[in-house]
């Protein structure tokens, strides 16, 4: 559809939120709590944060929750019954006030869960997802969306993208049919646009590196001493992976009691030593430098090469969450400069 531009003021925006919530949608909006901002389900309109730069966690758990039940089972002496979970019943979730980096990340997740084998569970959640984005008028030194082909006002992945204007009103770009249906159902809350320009208010995020150059360098950089030097500080936790909007490594586990239980999928990380450990004790990625290399290689070399997307939206969450200042932007800038002799 051809995108439309409308205007909505703050009072009307709160009304829109409440009306969507009242209609039975599960709203997922950012709230400031415990000294940080995170998305929560169904907060009151008054609780929603519009002033944060970035939430600590991403919004990936709307479609890839930290624990997802795959099916249930009931087993007795000689019989096993599988009980399927009806994923058609998952509720419609509206991600409210997600920054463009988060909105764009869904397309990467779509690729992972749909290349070759189609993951019905992911898709069941994804099909019920609506994204109301919010352009960034502020950014910090960890943000680098413009270096990975996105930007503070990028429309990718949003059904409606809001941009806050200096006068307290918001430009609402209606981008998809889904977005249009929401705007149409609440038409009285919007007014016509008068040529307002969002570029004037967007945060300035300087481009810091060429991701094409990084990808090119990584092709021949597997053996480079960079990995050892730049990962000595890494303590091997999973904070970066768990806050990342694109990291999707997972584990499959059973939980049961007296024969009744469930098989589930839960988050895991390629940064953990046990991730690739064989039963025999052999470990293809034995040390942390290899695991850190895997993280960056996967995002900036393997995924571009294999699935034609960059596994990073420049949200900077991993750098902010890292307890030991493994700053991904700093490393990518270094990797761009790295002189690597072609093999």
């Amino acid at each position, binding site marked *: 559809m051809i995108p439309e531009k409308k205007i909505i003021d703050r009072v009307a925006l709160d009304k829109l939120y409440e009306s969507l919530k009242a209609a039975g949608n599960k709203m997922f909006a950012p709230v400031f709590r415990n000294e940080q901002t995170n998305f929560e389900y169904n907060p009151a309109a008054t609780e929603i944060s519009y002033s944060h730069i970035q939430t600590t966690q991403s919004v990936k758990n709307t479609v890839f929750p930290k624990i997802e039940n795959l099916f249930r089972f009931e087993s007795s002496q000689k019989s096993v019954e599988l009980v399927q979970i009806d994923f058609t019943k998952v509720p419609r979730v509206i991600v409210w006030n997600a920054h463009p980096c988060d909105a764009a990340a869904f397309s990467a997740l779509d690729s992972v869960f749909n290349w070759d084998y189609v993951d019905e569970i992911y898709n069941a959640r994804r099909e019920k997802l609506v994204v109301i984005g919010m352009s960034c008028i502020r950014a910090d030194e960890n943000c680098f969306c413009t270096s990975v082909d996105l930007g503070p006002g990028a429309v990718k992945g949003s059904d409606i993208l809001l941009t806050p204007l200096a006068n307290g009103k918001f430009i609402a770009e209606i981008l998809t049919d889904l977005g249009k249906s929401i705007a149409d159902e609440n038409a009285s809350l919007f007014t016509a646009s008068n040529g307002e320009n969002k570029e004037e208010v967007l945060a300035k995020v300087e481009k810091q590196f060429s991701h094409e150059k990084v990808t090119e360098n990584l092709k021949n950089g597997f053996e480079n001493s960079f990995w050892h030097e730049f990962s000595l500080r890494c*303590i091997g936790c999973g904070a970066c992976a768990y806050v990342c909007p694109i990291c999707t490594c997972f584990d499959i586990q059973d939980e049961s009691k007296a024969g009744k239980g469930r098989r589930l999928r839960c988050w895991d990380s390629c940064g953990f030593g046990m991730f690739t450990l064989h039963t025999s004790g052999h470990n293809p990625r034995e040390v*942390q430098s290899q695991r850190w290399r895997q993280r960056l290689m996967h995002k900036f070399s393997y995924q571009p090469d294999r699935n034609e997307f960059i596994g990073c939206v420049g949200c900077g969450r991993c750098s902010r969450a890292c*307890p030991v200042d493994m700053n991904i932007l700093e490393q990518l800038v270094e990797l761009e400069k790295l002189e690597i002799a072609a093999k």
Partner: protein
Amino acid sequence: MDNLRKKAKELLESKSVDLVIGYENGTNGKARAVFIKDPEKTGKLIYDERCKQNLAVYLNKHEVKHYGRIAIVAPLMVMRSILVLISECQVKQENITVLGIGNDGSFLDFQSMEVVEKYISKIPLGNPEPDQVIIDKLNAMTMEERREFWQNELERCFKCYACRAACPMCYCLRCTVECNQPQWISAPAHPLGNLEWHQLRTMHLTGRCVSCGDCGRACPLNIPIHLLTMQQAEEAFHMFGVRAGTSMKADSALSTYKPDDKENFIL
């Protein structure tokens, strides 16, 4: 600071150590760990109030240990951690040179680990004041209130294990949470699994925690899990009269039986 850099440079130049672990200026105004092999790069070393990470965590890291003899910039918490690691046979005393930092931030040139022990023996040890204030508040609650407090906090945990990774004492190659025969602890990050994990972590650190607070600082979700191990540090002191990281030969409070151990906690 100059003394610290000078000493680090001397140690590397004279090849007395192979590596210096210290703090440097990181990104965005943060201080972070730095690993220096080249004496000419010792100018990077800093020490100020931003230097909070417990660097002892690196002494057991495979790729760091590999270097051999290590000098490490060590404020009190790091010194105490080193003593725990030596007492638990995780690092060799002769491989570690302590570049001490006094409580006032000054450089302390320790000639031996025995001197470090002596230094620590003169300092009153306990939990940092602000943390102890919160612990006292928690202890004043009813058991139900306390349970609710921790359930609310721990529910958020997504099991990234930053707490474990940041802790110098959590050096097991295979943590109990990863042992699956039997599966002691649920792997997924649901409320019960989280509660199990943090209780287990707390128990495994009882009598071994030096109250550095790095587990809590590492937590990306701001869960104050350091209060759990700090409370246990006090418990261990009251029950067994020992504080972790005061001696190279200390017996672990929970794994050493003494005939006069208190038994009044046994129901």
